[in-house]
């Protein structure tokens, strides 16, 4: 027997001795003799008698052996000596390990797991910026590559600055306790008004510069990082719809306002203890507006702002004939477009499962089903779009298949935490077809030029995702026994709760009626002040030189793309 095996056997014996002694002492103290085990009937297994409680004292803990220093010095190739009682932090070295120390360690381990989970998921979402950048750039013409890439690059910094200065406190400054992240007590001041006899939360008030009112706090930092990358996702959606003709300075100002005000206000209403979240508690509408990871908060806000901007900026020169017939203006690199779609699909595993804000406690173990729902809906979306395009136009269009994948992912973002896998596939499949129909509607009926399909992928399918919660939520989720302060699980119309659908529709109406209007007016003012659109000469030349001062591909000779009419 090796030395390590001897140590293990000794530890086991001592542990059994401790438990047995404790058990006997406990039963003696409580005046209860240990009950003899009941004889089980021959045919039917009886339930095992409940074990009496075994009190553990600080004294018991002292007899738990720790690995010897000389053994640890020899290394630990199988990990058997690492992570033992000796790794538990002791608050008082003189007294040694106590029950309190153990309880604190368990609590910290739970929060540590949740911190790491949320942070890593946030890092994945941050990487989605790269996916958006190459998708949008690939779908634009080569003469605008530098400009499109630079917008996607700088939107990260512009958005983060706006969110740190203004947006975060507005969004999360009144959210109250985030139990999975240790309670986050400093972000607890929501500004409310009285309306229809109820308190309506409008915006948060704590957290300016991550320093104000005690928000220099470990839990608040995790919340900030995760919410910041979500906000930046919404911002980068907009750059696609206005690509190839958006003045760079206008992009900076517009993105700042979106990150500082538009996004945070709606996000507060939905996620920050605002009035939409409280539709259930205040008006009995299901569990209130439920948007698990942001089909509405992130994607519809981005998509509807993209629509407002695309209307204001107007279509690219050559996009429509004089009779209003659309011309196809193909992107310059389908390879990076589909590569970007994969990057986004990868990042979505941070987006949706990460929205549990933890992997331990309060139903967070649903991360597995959330991840599976996410991948299934993306798959169904790409199939839906590919089949639609194949049947309608005779070819399985690559860029629309990519948009179908993204549409499925956008649509499942809100319901991912509340639905089962079959519903996920249905939601994704509908999203894949919807994105194709929406692209055609936006282009042919509205005559709005959206070079990357951002309005359809994120706006239309974000709304579909929000509605689908009200239809498909199966009432099986359990995130700590309640959602938005209402006891029970989010349950949609098909599973018996029509009022949840009403809450979702009010959310959609808020997106269309409030968020769009706010974004439109803001961008209208920017248009009047600095101008949203570049001059015709710069647009025809390509924005790389006039706006950025350098070509995206300086060694290539760019030729005008052949324009196909009536796509």
């Amino acid at each position, binding site marked *: 027997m090796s030395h390590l095996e001897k140590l293990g056997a000794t530890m086991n014996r001592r542990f059994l001795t401790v438990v047995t002694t404790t058990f006997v002492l406990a039963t003696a103290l409580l005046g209860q003799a240990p009950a003899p085990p009941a004889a089980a009937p021959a045919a039917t297994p009886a339930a095992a008698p409940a074990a009496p409680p075994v009190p553990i004292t600080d004294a018991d803990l002292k007899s738990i052996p720790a690995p010897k220093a000389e053994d640890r010095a020899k290394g630990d190739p199988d990990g058997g000596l690492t992570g033992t009682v000796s790794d538990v932090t002791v608050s008082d070295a003189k007294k040694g390990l106590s029950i309190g120390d153990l309880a604190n360690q368990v609590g910290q381990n739970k929060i540590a797991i949740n911190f790491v989970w949320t942070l890593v998921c946030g890092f994945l979402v941050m990487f989605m910026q790269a996916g958006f950048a190459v998708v949008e750039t690939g779908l634009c013409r080569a003469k605008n590559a530098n400009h499109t890439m630079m917008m996607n690059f700088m939107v990260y910094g512009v958005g983060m600055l706006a969110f740190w200065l203004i947006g975060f406190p507005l969004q999360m400054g009144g959210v109250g306790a985030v139990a999975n992240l240790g309670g986050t007590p400093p972000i607890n001041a929501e500004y409310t008004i009285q309306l*229809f006899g109820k308190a309506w939360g409008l915006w948060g008030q704590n957290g300016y510069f991550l320093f104000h009112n005690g928000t220099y706090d470990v839990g608040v930092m995790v919340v900030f990082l995760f919410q910041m990358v979500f906000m930046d996702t919404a911002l980068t959606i907009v750059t696609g719809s206005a690509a190839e003709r958006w003045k760079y300075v206008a992009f900076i100002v517009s993105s700042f306002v979106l990150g500082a005000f538009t996004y945070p206000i709606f996000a507060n209403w939905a996620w920050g203890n605002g009035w939409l979240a409280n*539709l259930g508690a205040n*008006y009995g*509408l299901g569990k209130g507006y439920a948007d698990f990871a942001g089909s509405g908060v992130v994607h519809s806000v981005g998509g509807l702002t993209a*629509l407002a901007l695309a*209307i*204001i900026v*107007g*279509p690219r*020169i050559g*996009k*429509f*004939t*004089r009779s*209003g017939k659309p011309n196809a203006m193909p992107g310059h690199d389908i390879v990076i477009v589909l590569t970007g779609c994969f990057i986004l699909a990868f990042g979505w595993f941070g987006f949706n499962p990460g929205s549990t804000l933890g992997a331990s406690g309060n139903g967070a173990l649903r991360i597995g089903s959330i991840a599976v729902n996410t991948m299934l809906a993306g798959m169904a979306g790409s199939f839906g779009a590919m089949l639609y395009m194949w049947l309608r136009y005779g070819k399985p269009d690559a860029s629309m298949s990519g948009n179908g994948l993204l549409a499925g992912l956008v649509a499942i973002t809100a319901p991912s935490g509340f639905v089962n896998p079959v519903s996920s596939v249905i939601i994704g499949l509908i999203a894949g077809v919807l994105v194709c129909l929406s692209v055609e509607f936006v282009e042919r*009926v*509205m*005559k*709005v030029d959206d070079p990357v399909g951002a309005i359809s992928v994120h706006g239309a399918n974000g709304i579909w995702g929000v509605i689908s919660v009200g239809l498909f939520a199966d009432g099986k989720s359990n995130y700590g026994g309640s959602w938005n302060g209402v006891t029970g699980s989010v349950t949609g119309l098909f599973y018996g709760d*029509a*009022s949840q*659908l*009403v809450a979702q*529709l*009010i959310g*959609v*109406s*808020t997106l*269309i*009626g*409030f968020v*769009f*209007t706010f974004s*439109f*007016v803001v961008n209208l003012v920017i248009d009047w002040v600095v101008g949203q659109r570049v001059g015709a000469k710069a647009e025809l030349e390509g924005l790389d030189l006039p706006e950025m001062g350098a070509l995206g591909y300086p060694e290539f000779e760019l030729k005008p793309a052949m324009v196909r009419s009536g796509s």
Partner: protein
Amino acid sequence: MLLAGIVATFAGFLISILSLTLSSSVGGRMVIVLIGMIVSLFGIIGLINKAYLKDAIWKK
């Protein structure tokens, strides 16, 4: 037309909000919210966008 579009789009939102006080039944609220959404969509597609299409660059 542009201003009317902005007003109509925002009015649709207000109509939806009013559903919370105008009706206490789920069906009644749903109908009112749907009316609000239609008003907002009309404001965007039928008024705001049309106002911009009047002077669209491709018509010049």
